[in-house]
């Protein structure tokens, strides 16, 4: 740690880390220095001139955003000269700025408004004609009002430096300077809306939110985005029980200011016209509306029969349960508990998109040296990526599938000079940031890892010309390996391309690197990790404890006051096959659409199918009973993102007629006459914290809008390395989100949805 620099600001003595910008030093000490163009983490502009301050011995006012502190610096931020400079800048700004605050979306949370209120220039001396340009719509979600723009260039920079998209720039010069989109009159970009969020005034406004309300008329509910596995915190702005905006208002939580199109706009599925608001029962082959009572009774009585007819001689298996990537930890935990303890089956699974069990197994088996200092499994958190010095990415396309992690990787490369190593079969956008790239044929990722493990015989399988025309020579391979070997404290990020033994190899390769290698497995959806952690798996109990392990079973049997079958259950595909072939009495599908893309009719009548979800998707169409469920935005609970960060869901609204999956489960248990619980999400979480390895974390961060990392550490039991069942990514892009994404108006509206393709082969 270098010696702090002593400076004086407004007669206060401050000690500051050398190299700190004066504006940051002042702000850290609670001394207000206004600025429009200065924005932490983005390049410096010195354009708005609002941060001018007096520095002793400087002949004129200096911009605090560009001056670094130096020893003995004496600064004044509240002199008449400074006040006059601020006032005059605002007067200049307001000259051509339309004073349409009463109809401007930004009114009430506008930085220009606030500054004028604080620093004056409320009365304008400008009597000339104002410059006028008509408002432009650049995309379904981005509107631009040029006269309101103060040219702080935040939007241009966040799009270029932050997003790496560069869809905005400045055209013309002087007073005619204007922000312009990349396709003449419209934008073609990622539609992330970061430019809107970062705009200090109402120049860039949101097509989803505009003219709906005023900021002071809303309630703000911070929760976790319902879409991808990154688990961004999104703050939903609610007016009259209606969500009208998504952003991360206070830039807190794991994602700070970042949100992609889904976190910002794709809350709109909740009010989609096809949203299920009544239970449906199949009568005479057709699904018809029913009351909750009727629906629950129907399911319970049928299940009761199945339970009663259960016998070893019955060739039909009684129950299969398919859980969700989207429901809360509490619901997932209770669902597998319900399956195992009430329905008596290990046939529990969900659509698995990352091989967490294999990662946990490999890490548990790996030597415990140099692990976290705490002896826990070396799993990286999402923000660790921002501070990493080197990152190895294998597979996945984070830009589309993990926008926050991609943002973090870009930040690491841009702000900290991190070196990104990529092993991939496609030309993913992150190659722009990559330091070394090893192109491989599709499915050959594991061979590249074998090569890194020092298996020279794999070299041959990697050599040659790739479809994209890249030449992989022995030198390319050696260079990649040698550069990576020189790195320390690498974070390894991998997608569904790596499963089973390949993950074991990866951990082996990682343990050959210097320092502490940490890992992130990339799973698709908001609670994919939570589903795995909570044991929605046929062979593993919560916390990756094998069902075959007597000690592991005992742990839960005791708590549940029940017995658990020691035989691993069927994975999802096997359950579906059995159901299709009539080998399963009943299939219970919660928050999932395993029949996606299939003909529902093929399924009807073969098994008693109960589906609870938001929409009448393919699986629901095949069901005998459909129960309308509440979405993640309509419930409380917790979710765990792909990095294992536990966060809290907060309820932002209600959709009449729906119930949370947890409520539905309890209703079913009650109707079956089985004591089952706990009943409240908080109580379920408490049970989870007590019994599930890794979840015994402090809740202080979680409850206050932050996150806590869960590390499923349990040295006692080793899960099997090879997966029992299929693991694959749905390859969603920025504008799709599984079945859920079909019901978002905004995701369906943006034109890029049609043109966003898989990146070309490498």
């Amino acid at each position, binding site marked *: 740690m270098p010696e702090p620099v002593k400076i004086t600001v407004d007669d206060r003595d401050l000690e500051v880390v050398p190299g700190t910008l004066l504006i940051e030093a002042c702000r850290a000490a609670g001394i207000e220095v206004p600025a429009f163009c200065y924005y932490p983490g983005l390049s410096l*502009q010195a*354009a708005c*001139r609002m941060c001018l301050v007096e520095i002793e011995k400087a002949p004129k006012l200096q911009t605090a955003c560009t001056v670094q502190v130096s020893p003995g610096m004496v600064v004044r931020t509240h002199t008449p000269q400074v006040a006059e400079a601020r006032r005059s800048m605002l007067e*200049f700004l307001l000259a051509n700025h339309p004073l349409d605050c009463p109809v401007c979306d930004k009114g009430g949370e506008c930085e220009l408004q606030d500054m004028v209120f604080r620093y004056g220039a409320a009365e304008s001396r400008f009597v000339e004609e104002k410059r006028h340009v008509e408002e432009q719509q650049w995309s379904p979600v981005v509107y631009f009002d040029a006269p309101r723009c103060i040219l702080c260039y935040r939007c241009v920079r966040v799009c270029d430096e932050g997003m790496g998209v560069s869809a905005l720039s400045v055209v013309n010069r002087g*007073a005619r300077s204007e922000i312009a989109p990349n396709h003449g009159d419209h934008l073609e970009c990622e539609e992330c809306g970061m430019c809107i969020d970062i705009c200090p005034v109402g120049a860039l406004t949101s097509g989803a939110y505009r003219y709906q309300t005023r900021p002071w008329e809303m309630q703000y509910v911070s929760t976790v985005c319902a879409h991808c596995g990154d688990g961004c915190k999104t703050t939903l702005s609610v007016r009259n029980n209606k969500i009208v905006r998504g952003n991360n208002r206070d830039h807190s939580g794991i994602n700070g200011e970042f949100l992609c199109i889904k976190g910002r706009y794709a809350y709109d599925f909740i009010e989609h016209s096809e949203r299920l608001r009544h239970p449906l029962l199949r009568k005479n082959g057709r699904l018809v509306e029913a009351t909750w009572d009727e629906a629950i009774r129907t399911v319970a009585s049928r299940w009761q029969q199945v339970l009663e007819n259960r016998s070893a001689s019955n060739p039909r298996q009684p129950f299969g349960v398919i859980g969700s990537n989207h429901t809360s930890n509490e619901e997932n935990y209770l669902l597998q508990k319900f399956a195992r303890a009430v329905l008596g089956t290990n046939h529990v699974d969900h659509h698995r998109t990352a091989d967490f069990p294999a990662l946990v197994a490999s890490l548990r088996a790996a030597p415990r040296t140099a692990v976290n200092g705490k002896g826990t499994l070396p799993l990286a958190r999402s923000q660790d990526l921002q501070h990493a010095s080197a990152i190895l990415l294998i597979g996945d396309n984070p830009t589309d599938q993990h926008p926050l992690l991609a943002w973090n990787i870009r930040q690491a490369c841009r702000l900290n000079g991190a070196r990104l190593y990529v092993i991939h079969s496609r030309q993913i956008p992150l190659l722009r940031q990559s330091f070394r790239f090893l192109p491989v044929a599709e499915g050959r990722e594991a061979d590249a890892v074998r090569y890194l493990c020092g298996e020279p015989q794999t070299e041959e399988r990697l050599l040659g010309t790739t479809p994209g025309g890249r030449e992989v020579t022995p030198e390319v391979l050696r260079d990649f390996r040698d550069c990576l070997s020189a790195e320390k404290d690498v974070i390894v990020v991998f997608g569904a391309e790596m499963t089973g033994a390949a993950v074991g190899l990866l951990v082996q390769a990682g343990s050959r690197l210097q320092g502490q290698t940490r890992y992130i497995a990339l799973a698709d959806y908001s609670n994919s990790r939570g589903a795995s952690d909570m044991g929605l798996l046929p062979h593993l109990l919560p916390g990756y404890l094998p069902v075959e392990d007597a000690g592991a079973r005992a742990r839960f049997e005791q708590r549940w006051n029940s017995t658990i079958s020691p035989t691993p259950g069927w994975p999802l595909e096997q359950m579906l096959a059995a159901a299709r072939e009539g080998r399963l009495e009943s299939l219970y599908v919660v928050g999932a659409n395993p029949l996606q893309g299939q003909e529902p009719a093929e399924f009807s009548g073969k098994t008693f199918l109960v589906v609870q979800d938001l929409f009448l998707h393919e699986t629901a169409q095949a069901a005998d009973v459909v129960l309308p469920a509440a979405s993640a935005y309509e419930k409380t609970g917790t979710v765990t993102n792909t990095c294992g960060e536990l966060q809290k869901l907060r309820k932002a609204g209600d959709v009449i007629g729906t119930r949370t999956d947890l409520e539905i489960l309890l209703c079913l248990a009650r109707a079956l006459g089985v004591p089952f619980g706990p009943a409240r999400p908080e109580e379920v979480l408490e049970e989870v914290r007590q019994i599930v390895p890794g979840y015994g974390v402090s809740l202080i961060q979680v409850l206050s809008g932050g996150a806590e990392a869960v590390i499923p550490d349990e040295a006692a039991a080793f899960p099997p390395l090879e997966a029992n069942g299929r693991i694959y990514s749905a390859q969603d892009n920025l504008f799709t989100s599984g079945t859920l994404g079909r019901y978002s108006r905004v995701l369906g509206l943006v034109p890029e949805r049609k043109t966003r393709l898989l990146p070309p082969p490498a």
Partner: protein
Amino acid sequence: MPFSAQLEEKFAKLLSRYPVRRSALIPMLLYAQDEHGHLSPEIVAEIARRLELSVLDVESTISYYSMLRQKPAGKHHLQICTNISCLLRGGQELFEHAKKKLGIGAGETMPDGLFSLEETECIGACAWAPALLANYDFYHDVTPERFDRLVAELRNGRCVPDRPPMPGSEHEVRVLSKRFNLPDSASIDTYLAHDGYRALGKALKEMTPDAIIEEVKSSNLRGRGGAGFPAGMKWGFVPKQSLKPKYIVCNADESEPGTCKDRLLMQNDPHQLIEGIVIAGVAVGAHQGYIYVRGEYRYLQEILERAIEEAYARGYLGKNILGTGFDFDLAPHTGAGAYECGEESALLESLEGKRGIPRIRPPFPAVVGLYGGPTVLNNVETFCSVPSIILQGGEWYARLGTPRNGGTRLFVLSGHVNRPGVYELPMGFPLRKMIEEVGGGILGGKKFKAVIPGGSSTPVLTSEALDTPMDFDSVAKAGSMLGSGAVIVMHEETCMVRAALRIIRFYAHESCGWCIPCREGTSWLNKTLTRFHSGGGRQEDIRLIHDLAKNMFGRTFCPLGDAAAMPIMSIVEKFRDEFEMHLSGKPCPFEAQPAELSV
């Protein structure tokens, strides 16, 4: 889309000149425009593709430069300068005449596509005003009658552009311009026959780099671009060791209104400039130089290209210069119409192919400059002074001028004098004598009213200041700046409100728009002064005009804001009575029929 063979050749040559592809962008655009008349979407897309840039990026750059256009112009694109020096000599009347004669307005093209017309900012012909550019050809002292003849000649395709003369004066001390009147003065043979490249030989063979810098320091040579920073000191800032290559960049973006001296230096003695640049390279250990020439000076670019070719052929450029093992490459680079690019950091951005937005300083170019390498940036005249300093010694040069203001400089006398022109005079030459004896007194025997001593960005001086010696320190003491040495004289019939308006209009046009006070301040002042001058003024406007300028002063991102503010403040302060005279609600009292002004 395919380009012509010539264009392909030019592109290939351009790409070989720069370590970064993007640097070729602006010249490529300009050359493509020369051939195709304008930059069509197809051309833009093709150039973007070749340089691996986005179309938006290219369009953002195009829209910054006033010479680049995305709409067609006439076969003969006539640009009439109405900036201050031309204004004082009838430029506005010429422009009004041209509109009538051609029957088109500003920015319009004749139906037959033969002529298009544009009112332009200073083109660097201030001493031969009023002047116009027909495509890249200069025409000087254009009266309405000459204009009519010119139009006829252009129609017939028989027209010889003007080359500016040096009228001469017995007060001149010719150091920089000593070879100007020699026959074929721009050729390397003439140069070599008259001390040419001897200084380079001396610098390479007899001097250490430090000794060269010391010699320049002792000469008291101060930057001739406008700021007057000691050249030797600037060179001394360049770090000896550098991981990145060092560069020498010559600022030939002469565009300060009133200034047209670098034109003569490049036109008449290009090798003197080349020699000065190479010596700077020797002094700081740089091996690559660029001459950034303003886009309007196309004929000078051609002269420089030729001279550089000659110098390569004779071994004064390239590998192993004079057998000493020293390598130096030099290339000219064209701008495309932006005053702001005369600011050194904006020039570097422009040279890197971007919009000419200044950089945050520090770091200064001497440490982090072109392509991130240490860079010496000097004006044409500054580099041209170097060979004489090396040959005849710093002290000799210093003694030509006044203390701390060494040597001679090319003063440009324009406006209301009988003999406007470019004159090489020693630093410290008295202003009164310059106007009365060198310039032959005030035009038409009228009375002197005011003088702008160093280009339009410097505060105006009145008769009390006439005894000021024309060196940096003395002019500063008198309340103005020596700037680029462009002396603009105004007689008693000049409307100072109009002068202020014309000046601010220029800065509003040239403001890059980056920072709030300059972007908004210049445009606000332009609007208010336009209204004020045409009879719509209010009493409170006088204070407002002064306030706005004051609020810009010292607070903008780059010196352009100060450049715009200083003349306005000084005119309001010194000619408040003329502002009061405009308050009667009637048109300007100095002008019978003030021309319609566009904002």
